[in-house]
Protein backbone atom coordinates (compact mmCIF):
# COMPACT_ATOMS: atom_id res chain seq x y z
CA UNK A 1 0.00 0.00 0.00
CA UNK A 2 2.82 2.38 0.81
CA UNK A 3 4.32 1.66 -2.61
CA UNK A 4 1.09 2.55 -4.39
CA UNK A 5 0.99 5.93 -2.64
CA UNK A 6 4.50 6.76 -3.74
CA UNK A 7 3.79 5.69 -7.28
CA UNK A 8 0.65 7.73 -7.82
CA UNK A 9 2.18 10.91 -6.41
CA UNK A 10 5.15 10.49 -8.70
CA UNK A 11 3.00 9.80 -11.73
CA UNK A 12 0.98 12.92 -10.92
CA UNK A 13 4.10 15.08 -10.92
CA UNK A 14 5.30 13.83 -14.30
CA UNK A 15 3.11 15.82 -16.74
CA UNK A 16 4.12 19.25 -15.47
CA UNK A 17 7.81 18.37 -15.24
CA UNK A 18 7.61 16.99 -18.75
CA UNK A 19 5.82 20.10 -20.07
CA UNK A 20 8.32 22.37 -18.29
CA UNK A 21 11.29 20.71 -19.91
CA UNK A 22 9.67 20.45 -23.31
CA UNK A 23 7.95 23.84 -23.57
CA UNK A 24 9.98 26.14 -21.33
CA UNK A 25 13.51 24.97 -20.68
CA UNK A 26 14.29 23.19 -23.95
CA UNK A 27 12.98 26.00 -26.21
CA UNK A 28 14.99 28.61 -24.32
CA UNK A 29 18.21 26.60 -24.46
CA UNK A 30 17.54 25.76 -28.09
CA UNK A 31 17.11 29.44 -28.96
CA UNK A 32 20.26 30.31 -27.04
CA UNK A 33 22.22 27.78 -29.07
CA UNK A 34 20.61 29.13 -32.23
CA UNK A 35 21.57 32.71 -31.44
CA UNK A 36 25.11 31.83 -30.40
CA UNK A 37 25.59 29.70 -33.53
CA UNK A 38 25.80 32.86 -35.60
CA UNK A 39 27.63 35.41 -33.44
CA UNK A 40 27.68 38.01 -36.21
CA UNK A 41 23.89 38.36 -35.89
CA UNK A 42 24.25 39.29 -32.24
CA UNK A 43 27.09 41.75 -32.83
CA UNK A 44 25.19 43.29 -35.72
CA UNK A 45 22.18 43.57 -33.42
CA UNK A 46 24.06 45.33 -30.65
CA UNK A 47 25.48 47.86 -33.06
CA UNK A 48 22.15 48.69 -34.72
CA UNK A 49 20.41 51.87 -33.49
CA UNK A 50 17.02 50.21 -34.14
CA UNK A 51 17.70 47.70 -31.39
CA UNK A 52 18.72 50.32 -28.82
CA UNK A 53 15.73 52.43 -29.75
CA UNK A 54 13.48 49.45 -29.00
CA UNK A 55 15.33 48.90 -25.75
CA UNK A 56 14.85 52.53 -24.76
CA UNK A 57 11.15 52.28 -25.59
CA UNK A 58 10.89 49.20 -23.42
CA UNK A 59 12.44 51.02 -20.46
CA UNK A 60 10.21 54.08 -20.93
CA UNK A 61 7.20 51.79 -21.17
CA UNK A 62 8.16 49.83 -18.04
CA UNK A 63 9.01 52.79 -15.85
CA UNK A 64 5.93 54.78 -16.76
CA UNK A 65 3.25 52.10 -17.15
CA UNK A 66 4.05 49.97 -14.09
CA UNK A 67 4.00 52.81 -11.50
CA UNK A 68 0.76 54.21 -12.97
CA UNK A 69 -0.79 50.75 -12.85
CA UNK A 70 0.08 50.24 -9.21
CA UNK A 71 -0.92 53.72 -8.14
CA UNK A 72 -4.31 53.12 -9.71
CA UNK A 73 -4.54 49.63 -8.24
CA UNK A 74 -3.86 51.07 -4.77
CA UNK A 75 -6.46 53.80 -5.25
CA UNK A 76 -9.20 51.56 -6.65
CA UNK A 77 -8.58 48.79 -4.11
CA UNK A 78 -8.74 51.43 -1.37
CA UNK A 79 -12.03 52.64 -2.78
CA UNK A 80 -13.37 49.06 -2.86
CA UNK A 81 -12.27 48.38 0.73
CA UNK A 82 -13.61 51.64 2.17
CA UNK A 83 -16.96 51.51 0.43
CA UNK A 84 -17.49 47.78 0.14
CA UNK A 85 -20.90 47.99 1.82
CA UNK A 86 -22.19 51.01 -0.07
CA UNK A 87 -23.87 50.98 -3.46
CA UNK A 88 -20.88 52.77 -5.05
CA UNK A 89 -18.45 50.10 -3.93
CA UNK A 90 -20.77 47.35 -5.14
CA UNK A 91 -21.12 48.89 -8.61
CA UNK A 92 -17.37 49.30 -9.01
CA UNK A 93 -16.79 45.82 -7.59
CA UNK A 94 -19.04 44.36 -10.28
CA UNK A 95 -17.45 46.13 -13.25
CA UNK A 96 -13.81 46.84 -12.54
CA UNK A 97 -12.55 43.48 -13.85
CA UNK A 98 -14.28 43.97 -17.21
CA UNK A 99 -11.16 45.08 -19.16
CA UNK A 100 -9.39 41.98 -17.99
CA UNK A 101 -12.11 39.60 -19.25
CA UNK A 102 -12.53 41.15 -22.71
CA UNK A 103 -10.25 39.56 -25.34
CA UNK A 104 -7.21 41.78 -25.91
CA UNK A 105 -7.72 41.93 -29.66
CA UNK A 106 -11.28 43.19 -29.27
CA UNK A 107 -10.33 45.93 -26.80
CA UNK A 108 -7.29 46.86 -28.89
CA UNK A 109 -9.63 47.30 -31.87
CA UNK A 110 -11.81 49.54 -29.72
CA UNK A 111 -8.83 51.60 -28.57
CA UNK A 112 -7.41 51.97 -32.02
CA UNK A 113 -10.69 53.27 -33.36
CA UNK A 114 -11.23 55.56 -30.36
CA UNK A 115 -7.74 57.02 -30.80
CA UNK A 116 -8.21 57.82 -34.50
CA UNK A 117 -7.21 61.38 -35.33
CA UNK A 118 -10.20 62.32 -37.46
CA UNK A 119 -13.01 60.02 -36.39
CA UNK A 120 -12.01 58.79 -32.92
CA UNK A 121 -14.13 59.28 -29.83
CA UNK A 122 -11.29 60.69 -27.71
CA UNK A 123 -10.53 63.48 -30.15
CA UNK A 124 -14.25 64.15 -30.52
CA UNK A 125 -14.44 64.62 -26.75
CA UNK A 126 -11.38 66.87 -26.74
CA UNK A 127 -12.85 69.12 -29.44
CA UNK A 128 -16.18 69.25 -27.60
CA UNK A 129 -14.33 70.39 -24.49
CA UNK A 130 -12.65 73.09 -26.56
CA UNK A 131 -9.24 71.43 -26.46
CA UNK A 132 -6.95 70.80 -29.43
CA UNK A 133 -6.89 67.37 -31.05
CA UNK A 134 -4.05 64.99 -30.18
CA UNK A 135 -2.45 62.92 -32.98
CA UNK A 136 -2.50 59.83 -30.75
CA UNK A 137 -1.11 57.38 -33.27
CA UNK A 138 0.69 59.75 -35.59
CA UNK A 139 3.73 60.94 -33.64
CA UNK A 140 6.12 59.36 -31.20
CA UNK A 141 5.18 60.60 -27.72
CA UNK A 142 1.41 60.43 -28.19
CA UNK A 143 1.85 56.91 -29.59
CA UNK A 144 3.89 55.83 -26.55
CA UNK A 145 1.23 57.44 -24.40
CA UNK A 146 -1.49 55.45 -26.21
CA UNK A 147 0.38 52.20 -25.67
CA UNK A 148 0.75 52.95 -21.98
CA UNK A 149 -2.90 53.94 -21.59
CA UNK A 150 -4.06 50.72 -23.22
CA UNK A 151 -1.73 48.60 -21.13
CA UNK A 152 -2.81 50.34 -17.93
CA UNK A 153 -6.49 50.00 -18.86
CA UNK A 154 -6.09 46.31 -19.59
CA UNK A 155 -3.94 45.23 -16.64
CA UNK A 156 -4.85 47.51 -13.69
CA UNK A 157 -7.91 45.37 -12.83
CA UNK A 158 -5.91 42.22 -12.17
CA UNK A 159 -3.47 43.94 -9.80
CA UNK A 160 -6.37 45.75 -8.15
CA UNK A 161 -7.94 42.38 -7.44
CA UNK A 162 -4.76 40.96 -5.89
CA UNK A 163 -4.03 44.04 -3.77
CA UNK A 164 -7.67 44.22 -2.74
CA UNK A 165 -7.45 40.60 -1.58
CA UNK A 166 -4.34 41.40 0.45
CA UNK A 167 -5.94 44.46 2.05
CA UNK A 168 -9.04 42.53 2.94
CA UNK A 169 -7.07 40.27 5.25
CA UNK A 170 -6.00 43.26 7.40
CA UNK A 171 -8.14 43.30 10.57
CA UNK A 172 -10.46 46.32 10.70
CA UNK A 173 -9.79 46.93 14.40
CA UNK A 174 -6.34 48.22 13.49
CA UNK A 175 -7.87 51.03 11.48
CA UNK A 176 -10.50 51.78 14.10
CA UNK A 177 -7.99 52.18 16.92
CA UNK A 178 -5.74 54.31 14.69
CA UNK A 179 -8.71 56.50 13.89
CA UNK A 180 -9.41 56.99 17.59
CA UNK A 181 -5.78 57.99 18.05
CA UNK A 182 -6.35 60.65 15.42
CA UNK A 183 -4.36 59.18 12.52
CA UNK A 184 -5.20 60.70 9.13
CA UNK A 185 -6.09 58.64 6.08
CA UNK A 186 -2.58 59.14 4.75
CA UNK A 187 -0.97 58.05 8.04
CA UNK A 188 -3.20 54.99 8.27
CA UNK A 189 -2.21 53.98 4.75
CA UNK A 190 1.49 54.52 5.38
CA UNK A 191 1.72 52.92 8.83
CA UNK A 192 -0.90 50.17 8.72
CA UNK A 193 -1.78 49.19 5.16
CA UNK A 194 1.63 49.43 3.53
CA UNK A 195 3.65 47.47 6.12
CA UNK A 196 1.06 44.70 6.12
CA UNK A 197 0.79 44.29 2.35
CA UNK A 198 4.46 45.08 1.69
CA UNK A 199 5.42 41.59 0.63
CA UNK A 200 2.40 41.08 -1.60
CA UNK A 201 2.90 44.53 -3.07
CA UNK A 202 6.56 43.94 -3.89
CA UNK A 203 5.84 40.55 -5.44
CA UNK A 204 3.05 42.00 -7.58
CA UNK A 205 5.25 44.92 -8.61
CA UNK A 206 8.10 42.68 -9.72
CA UNK A 207 5.78 40.23 -11.42
CA UNK A 208 4.24 43.10 -13.30
CA UNK A 209 7.67 44.41 -14.33
CA UNK A 210 8.64 40.96 -15.61
CA UNK A 211 5.40 40.39 -17.49
CA UNK A 212 5.33 43.91 -18.91
CA UNK A 213 8.79 43.34 -20.37
CA UNK A 214 7.07 40.82 -22.61
CA UNK A 215 4.13 43.10 -23.47
CA UNK A 216 3.25 42.48 -27.08
CA UNK A 217 -0.41 43.16 -27.88
CA UNK A 218 -0.46 46.77 -26.66
CA UNK A 219 2.27 47.71 -29.10
CA UNK A 220 1.54 45.42 -32.01
CA UNK A 221 -2.20 46.07 -32.07
CA UNK A 222 -2.69 49.62 -30.83
CA UNK A 223 0.09 51.48 -32.65
CA UNK A 224 1.40 48.63 -34.86
CA UNK A 225 4.80 49.82 -33.60
CA UNK A 226 4.14 52.99 -35.58
CA UNK A 227 4.52 55.75 -36.52
CA UNK A 228 7.14 54.30 -38.90
CA UNK A 229 8.38 51.70 -36.42
CA UNK A 230 9.23 54.30 -33.77
CA UNK A 231 7.44 52.57 -30.89
CA UNK A 232 8.91 49.08 -31.28
CA UNK A 233 9.94 47.34 -28.10
CA UNK A 234 12.10 44.23 -27.84
CA UNK A 235 9.14 41.87 -28.07
CA UNK A 236 7.63 43.36 -31.21
CA UNK A 237 11.02 43.83 -32.86
CA UNK A 238 11.85 40.14 -32.41
CA UNK A 239 8.39 39.09 -33.46
CA UNK A 240 8.58 41.18 -36.61
CA UNK A 241 11.87 39.53 -37.60
CA UNK A 242 10.27 36.10 -37.44
CA UNK A 243 6.79 36.93 -38.65
CA UNK A 244 7.45 39.39 -41.45
CA UNK A 245 11.04 38.73 -42.51
CA UNK A 246 11.19 34.99 -41.66
CA UNK A 247 14.50 35.62 -39.92
CA UNK A 248 14.36 33.01 -37.19
CA UNK A 249 17.88 33.44 -35.85
CA UNK A 250 17.66 37.21 -35.57
CA UNK A 251 14.25 37.02 -33.88
CA UNK A 252 15.48 34.43 -31.40
CA UNK A 253 18.62 36.51 -30.71
CA UNK A 254 16.54 39.59 -29.94
CA UNK A 255 14.44 37.63 -27.45
CA UNK A 256 17.45 35.98 -25.86
CA UNK A 257 19.16 39.36 -25.45
CA UNK A 258 16.67 40.49 -22.79
CA UNK A 259 16.90 37.19 -20.94
CA UNK A 260 19.58 38.44 -18.47
CA UNK A 261 17.35 41.37 -17.50
CA UNK A 262 14.36 39.07 -17.00
CA UNK A 263 16.43 36.55 -15.04
CA UNK A 264 17.71 39.21 -12.62
CA UNK A 265 14.16 40.38 -11.93
CA UNK A 266 12.99 36.78 -11.52
CA UNK A 267 15.79 36.11 -9.07
CA UNK A 268 14.87 39.12 -6.91
CA UNK A 269 11.26 38.00 -7.03
CA UNK A 270 12.13 34.48 -5.89
CA UNK A 271 14.24 35.81 -3.02
CA UNK A 272 11.34 37.94 -1.78
CA UNK A 273 8.91 35.08 -2.30
CA UNK A 274 10.95 32.59 -0.28
CA UNK A 275 11.52 34.97 2.64
Amino acid at each position, binding site marked *: *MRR*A*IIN*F*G*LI*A*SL*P*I*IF*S*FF*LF*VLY*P*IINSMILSVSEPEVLSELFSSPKYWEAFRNLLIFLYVAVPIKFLMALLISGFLIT*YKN*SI*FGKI*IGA*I*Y*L*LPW*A*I*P*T*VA*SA*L*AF*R*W*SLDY*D*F*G*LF*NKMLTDLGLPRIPFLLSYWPAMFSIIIFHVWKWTPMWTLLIY*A*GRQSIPEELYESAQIDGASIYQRFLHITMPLIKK*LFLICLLLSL*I*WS*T*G*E*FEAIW*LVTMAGPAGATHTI*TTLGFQQ*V*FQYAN*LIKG*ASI*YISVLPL*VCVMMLIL*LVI*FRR
Partner: protein
Amino acid sequence: MLLNKFLEKFLLLIATCVIILWTFLPVYNMIVTSFKTWEDVWVASYLPRRFTIEPYITVVTQSYFRVEKFWLWLWNSFRIAVEVMILGVFIGLLAGYAMSKKSRIYGKVKSLVANVSLLSYIFPVSLLSIPIFVLMYTYKLLNTDWAVSLSLAALVSPFNAWMAAEYFDSIPKEVEEAAEVDGATAFQRFWLILLPLTTPAIIALSVYSFLYSWNNYLYPLLMLSDEDHFVLPIVMGFFLSTDDSPWNIFMATGILYSIPPLALYYIFRQYMVSGLFKGAVKI
Protein backbone atom coordinates in the same frame (compact mmCIF):
# COMPACT_ATOMS: atom_id res chain seq x y z
CA MET B 1 -21.46 68.22 9.65
CA LEU B 2 -24.36 67.74 7.26
CA LEU B 3 -22.44 69.68 4.64
CA ASN B 4 -19.41 67.44 5.15
CA LYS B 5 -21.49 64.34 4.70
CA PHE B 6 -23.04 65.78 1.57
CA LEU B 7 -19.62 66.70 0.23
CA GLU B 8 -18.33 63.21 0.85
CA LYS B 9 -21.25 61.63 -0.99
CA PHE B 10 -20.72 64.06 -3.83
CA LEU B 11 -17.01 63.29 -4.15
CA LEU B 12 -17.81 59.60 -3.92
CA LEU B 13 -20.25 59.93 -6.78
CA ILE B 14 -17.63 61.72 -8.87
CA ALA B 15 -15.00 59.07 -8.12
CA THR B 16 -17.45 56.30 -9.06
CA CYS B 17 -18.30 58.05 -12.32
CA VAL B 18 -14.63 58.51 -13.18
CA ILE B 19 -13.88 54.81 -12.65
CA ILE B 20 -16.96 53.77 -14.64
CA LEU B 21 -16.04 56.17 -17.45
CA TRP B 22 -12.46 54.91 -17.50
CA THR B 23 -13.57 51.28 -17.66
CA PHE B 24 -16.39 51.67 -20.14
CA LEU B 25 -15.42 54.42 -22.57
CA PRO B 26 -13.58 52.24 -25.13
CA VAL B 27 -16.21 49.51 -24.78
CA TYR B 28 -18.93 52.09 -25.18
CA ASN B 29 -17.36 53.40 -28.38
CA MET B 30 -17.14 49.85 -29.64
CA ILE B 31 -20.84 49.21 -29.02
CA VAL B 32 -21.93 52.52 -30.55
CA THR B 33 -19.80 52.02 -33.67
CA SER B 34 -21.13 48.51 -34.16
CA PHE B 35 -24.66 49.90 -34.53
CA LYS B 36 -23.71 52.57 -37.05
CA THR B 37 -24.23 52.48 -40.78
CA TRP B 38 -21.24 52.53 -43.11
CA GLU B 39 -21.52 56.28 -43.83
CA ASP B 40 -22.01 57.21 -40.18
CA VAL B 41 -18.80 55.47 -39.15
CA TRP B 42 -16.95 58.44 -40.63
CA VAL B 43 -18.77 60.90 -38.38
CA ALA B 44 -17.59 60.90 -34.77
CA SER B 45 -20.65 60.94 -32.51
CA TYR B 46 -21.70 59.75 -29.06
CA LEU B 47 -24.74 57.89 -30.38
CA PRO B 48 -25.46 56.34 -33.78
CA ARG B 49 -27.45 58.77 -35.92
CA ARG B 50 -29.27 55.94 -37.62
CA PHE B 51 -29.46 52.80 -35.53
CA THR B 52 -28.85 49.61 -37.53
CA ILE B 53 -28.01 45.99 -36.85
CA GLU B 54 -26.71 45.58 -40.40
CA PRO B 55 -23.06 45.10 -39.25
CA TYR B 56 -24.04 42.12 -37.11
CA ILE B 57 -26.02 40.58 -39.96
CA THR B 58 -23.05 41.06 -42.27
CA VAL B 59 -20.79 39.23 -39.83
CA VAL B 60 -23.19 36.41 -39.07
CA THR B 61 -23.99 35.79 -42.74
CA GLN B 62 -20.29 36.14 -43.62
CA SER B 63 -21.12 38.52 -46.45
CA TYR B 64 -17.99 40.68 -46.24
CA PHE B 65 -14.70 39.28 -47.46
CA ARG B 66 -12.75 39.94 -44.27
CA VAL B 67 -15.20 37.85 -42.24
CA GLU B 68 -15.95 35.31 -44.96
CA LYS B 69 -15.22 32.33 -42.70
CA PHE B 70 -16.51 33.78 -39.44
CA TRP B 71 -18.14 30.59 -38.18
CA LEU B 72 -15.17 28.40 -39.08
CA TRP B 73 -12.76 30.76 -37.29
CA LEU B 74 -15.06 30.95 -34.30
CA TRP B 75 -15.25 27.16 -34.19
CA ASN B 76 -11.44 26.97 -34.39
CA SER B 77 -11.17 29.35 -31.42
CA PHE B 78 -13.65 27.30 -29.47
CA ARG B 79 -12.07 23.94 -30.28
CA ILE B 80 -8.57 25.09 -29.35
CA ALA B 81 -9.87 26.69 -26.15
CA VAL B 82 -11.54 23.41 -25.16
CA GLU B 83 -8.34 21.49 -25.89
CA VAL B 84 -6.31 23.91 -23.77
CA MET B 85 -8.92 23.67 -21.03
CA ILE B 86 -8.84 19.86 -20.87
CA LEU B 87 -5.05 19.59 -21.07
CA GLY B 88 -4.35 22.53 -18.78
CA VAL B 89 -6.74 21.39 -16.07
CA PHE B 90 -5.50 17.79 -16.32
CA ILE B 91 -1.84 18.77 -15.92
CA GLY B 92 -2.66 21.41 -13.31
CA LEU B 93 -4.75 19.15 -11.09
CA LEU B 94 -2.18 16.35 -11.09
CA ALA B 95 0.71 18.76 -10.41
CA GLY B 96 -1.34 20.51 -7.74
CA TYR B 97 -1.92 17.17 -6.05
CA ALA B 98 1.79 16.32 -6.23
CA MET B 99 2.70 19.71 -4.73
CA SER B 100 0.11 19.59 -1.94
CA LYS B 101 0.42 18.03 1.48
CA LYS B 102 -1.92 15.25 0.30
CA SER B 103 0.63 13.44 -1.83
CA ARG B 104 3.31 11.51 -0.01
CA ILE B 105 6.30 11.72 -2.30
CA TYR B 106 9.91 12.62 -1.61
CA GLY B 107 10.32 16.22 -0.53
CA LYS B 108 12.77 16.78 -3.35
CA VAL B 109 10.27 15.77 -6.04
CA LYS B 110 7.62 17.88 -4.37
CA SER B 111 9.77 20.99 -4.34
CA LEU B 112 10.88 20.29 -7.91
CA VAL B 113 7.23 20.37 -9.01
CA ALA B 114 6.63 23.55 -7.00
CA ASN B 115 9.71 25.30 -8.37
CA VAL B 116 9.07 24.24 -11.93
CA SER B 117 5.51 25.60 -11.71
CA LEU B 118 6.65 28.84 -10.12
CA LEU B 119 9.40 29.43 -12.68
CA SER B 120 7.20 28.84 -15.69
CA TYR B 121 4.43 30.93 -14.12
CA ILE B 122 6.56 34.03 -13.62
CA PHE B 123 8.39 33.86 -16.96
CA PRO B 124 6.92 36.30 -19.51
CA VAL B 125 4.91 34.14 -21.92
CA SER B 126 5.54 36.26 -24.99
CA LEU B 127 9.30 35.82 -24.66
CA LEU B 128 8.72 32.08 -24.98
CA SER B 129 6.76 32.44 -28.21
CA ILE B 130 9.67 32.35 -30.65
CA PRO B 131 11.54 29.58 -28.82
CA ILE B 132 8.36 27.48 -28.86
CA PHE B 133 7.80 28.43 -32.49
CA VAL B 134 11.24 27.02 -33.31
CA LEU B 135 10.29 23.84 -31.46
CA MET B 136 7.02 23.47 -33.36
CA TYR B 137 8.81 24.20 -36.61
CA THR B 138 11.35 21.48 -35.88
CA TYR B 139 8.66 18.92 -35.17
CA LYS B 140 6.54 20.03 -38.15
CA LEU B 141 3.56 20.88 -35.95
CA LEU B 142 3.02 24.39 -37.32
CA ASN B 143 -0.44 25.01 -38.71
CA THR B 144 -2.09 22.39 -36.54
CA ASP B 145 -4.24 22.73 -33.43
CA TRP B 146 -1.49 21.05 -31.47
CA ALA B 147 1.01 23.84 -31.99
CA VAL B 148 -1.32 26.26 -30.22
CA SER B 149 -3.08 24.02 -27.74
CA LEU B 150 0.01 22.21 -26.46
CA SER B 151 1.97 25.41 -25.90
CA LEU B 152 -0.93 27.28 -24.29
CA ALA B 153 -1.75 24.29 -22.08
CA ALA B 154 1.88 24.16 -20.96
CA LEU B 155 1.77 27.87 -20.17
CA VAL B 156 -1.53 27.88 -18.29
CA SER B 157 -0.95 24.74 -16.21
CA PRO B 158 1.56 26.22 -13.69
CA PHE B 159 -1.07 28.70 -12.47
CA ASN B 160 -3.61 25.89 -12.36
CA ALA B 161 -1.19 23.80 -10.34
CA TRP B 162 -0.72 26.48 -7.67
CA MET B 163 -4.45 27.07 -7.36
CA ALA B 164 -5.20 23.35 -7.21
CA ALA B 165 -2.52 22.83 -4.56
CA GLU B 166 -4.17 25.53 -2.41
CA TYR B 167 -7.47 23.68 -2.66
CA PHE B 168 -6.03 20.26 -1.91
CA ASP B 169 -4.28 21.70 1.13
CA SER B 170 -7.51 23.19 2.43
CA ILE B 171 -9.25 19.79 2.55
CA PRO B 172 -8.96 18.35 6.10
CA LYS B 173 -6.80 15.26 6.16
CA GLU B 174 -9.36 13.30 8.24
CA VAL B 175 -11.51 13.02 5.11
CA GLU B 176 -8.85 11.00 3.41
CA GLU B 177 -7.81 9.01 6.46
CA ALA B 178 -11.17 7.27 6.78
CA ALA B 179 -10.83 5.95 3.24
CA GLU B 180 -7.24 4.93 3.86
CA VAL B 181 -8.33 2.76 6.79
CA ASP B 182 -10.79 1.06 4.45
CA GLY B 183 -7.90 0.19 2.16
CA ALA B 184 -8.36 2.71 -0.68
CA THR B 185 -5.26 3.25 -2.79
CA ALA B 186 -3.77 6.70 -3.35
CA PHE B 187 -5.33 6.89 -6.80
CA GLN B 188 -8.74 5.83 -5.51
CA ARG B 189 -8.58 8.48 -2.78
CA PHE B 190 -7.57 11.12 -5.31
CA TRP B 191 -10.24 10.13 -7.81
CA LEU B 192 -13.16 9.30 -5.50
CA ILE B 193 -12.62 11.62 -2.55
CA LEU B 194 -10.36 14.56 -3.27
CA LEU B 195 -11.52 15.40 -6.79
CA PRO B 196 -15.26 15.63 -5.99
CA LEU B 197 -14.37 17.97 -3.11
CA THR B 198 -12.36 20.24 -5.42
CA THR B 199 -15.27 20.89 -7.83
CA PRO B 200 -15.24 24.67 -7.22
CA ALA B 201 -11.52 24.77 -8.02
CA ILE B 202 -12.00 22.64 -11.12
CA ILE B 203 -14.71 25.03 -12.36
CA ALA B 204 -12.50 28.06 -11.70
CA LEU B 205 -9.48 26.52 -13.42
CA SER B 206 -11.53 25.35 -16.40
CA VAL B 207 -12.97 28.79 -16.96
CA TYR B 208 -9.57 30.40 -16.48
CA SER B 209 -7.87 28.05 -18.95
CA PHE B 210 -10.65 28.43 -21.49
CA LEU B 211 -10.43 32.24 -21.33
CA TYR B 212 -6.65 32.11 -21.46
CA SER B 213 -6.78 30.37 -24.80
CA TRP B 214 -9.82 32.21 -26.15
CA ASN B 215 -8.23 35.60 -25.44
CA ASN B 216 -4.72 34.74 -26.61
CA TYR B 217 -3.49 36.46 -29.73
CA LEU B 218 0.26 36.00 -30.02
CA TYR B 219 0.52 32.22 -30.10
CA PRO B 220 -2.12 31.52 -32.77
CA LEU B 221 -0.74 34.38 -34.86
CA LEU B 222 2.71 32.87 -34.81
CA MET B 223 1.79 29.20 -35.17
CA LEU B 224 -1.07 29.27 -37.68
CA SER B 225 -0.59 30.53 -41.20
CA ASP B 226 -3.25 28.72 -43.20
CA GLU B 227 -6.54 30.56 -43.48
CA ASP B 228 -8.63 27.50 -42.66
CA HIS B 229 -6.77 27.04 -39.38
CA PHE B 230 -7.07 30.66 -38.26
CA VAL B 231 -8.76 31.59 -35.02
CA LEU B 232 -10.84 34.75 -34.86
CA PRO B 233 -8.27 36.92 -32.98
CA ILE B 234 -5.80 36.54 -35.87
CA VAL B 235 -8.40 37.77 -38.32
CA MET B 236 -9.33 40.65 -36.01
CA GLY B 237 -5.66 41.59 -35.86
CA PHE B 238 -5.61 41.77 -39.66
CA PHE B 239 -8.48 44.26 -39.56
CA LEU B 240 -6.05 46.75 -38.10
CA SER B 241 -3.68 46.72 -41.03
CA THR B 242 -6.25 47.97 -43.52
CA ASP B 243 -7.08 51.56 -44.39
CA ASP B 244 -10.54 52.79 -45.22
CA SER B 245 -12.07 49.92 -43.31
CA PRO B 246 -15.67 49.19 -42.29
CA TRP B 247 -15.15 49.77 -38.58
CA ASN B 248 -18.79 49.01 -37.80
CA ILE B 249 -18.33 45.45 -39.06
CA PHE B 250 -15.02 45.09 -37.21
CA MET B 251 -16.57 46.30 -33.96
CA ALA B 252 -19.50 43.93 -34.37
CA THR B 253 -17.03 41.06 -34.79
CA GLY B 254 -15.18 42.18 -31.68
CA ILE B 255 -18.36 42.33 -29.65
CA LEU B 256 -19.55 38.92 -30.83
CA TYR B 257 -16.16 37.50 -29.87
CA SER B 258 -16.25 39.18 -26.43
CA ILE B 259 -19.67 37.89 -25.44
CA PRO B 260 -18.66 34.29 -24.54
CA PRO B 261 -15.76 35.26 -22.23
CA LEU B 262 -17.80 37.98 -20.55
CA ALA B 263 -20.72 35.62 -20.02
CA LEU B 264 -18.42 32.95 -18.60
CA TYR B 265 -16.73 35.49 -16.37
CA TYR B 266 -19.98 36.81 -14.93
CA ILE B 267 -21.51 33.35 -14.44
CA PHE B 268 -18.46 31.99 -12.64
CA ARG B 269 -17.19 35.23 -11.11
CA GLN B 270 -17.48 33.97 -7.54
CA TYR B 271 -15.37 30.88 -8.22
CA MET B 272 -12.71 32.71 -10.18
CA VAL B 273 -12.30 35.65 -7.84
CA SER B 274 -12.11 33.48 -4.74
CA GLY B 275 -9.44 31.31 -6.40
CA LEU B 276 -7.28 34.34 -7.15
CA PHE B 277 -7.99 35.71 -3.67
CA LYS B 278 -6.67 32.64 -1.93
CA GLY B 279 -3.33 32.87 -3.70
CA ALA B 280 -2.91 36.54 -2.86
CA VAL B 281 -3.84 36.17 0.80
CA LYS B 282 -1.34 33.39 1.27
CA ILE B 283 1.55 35.63 0.22
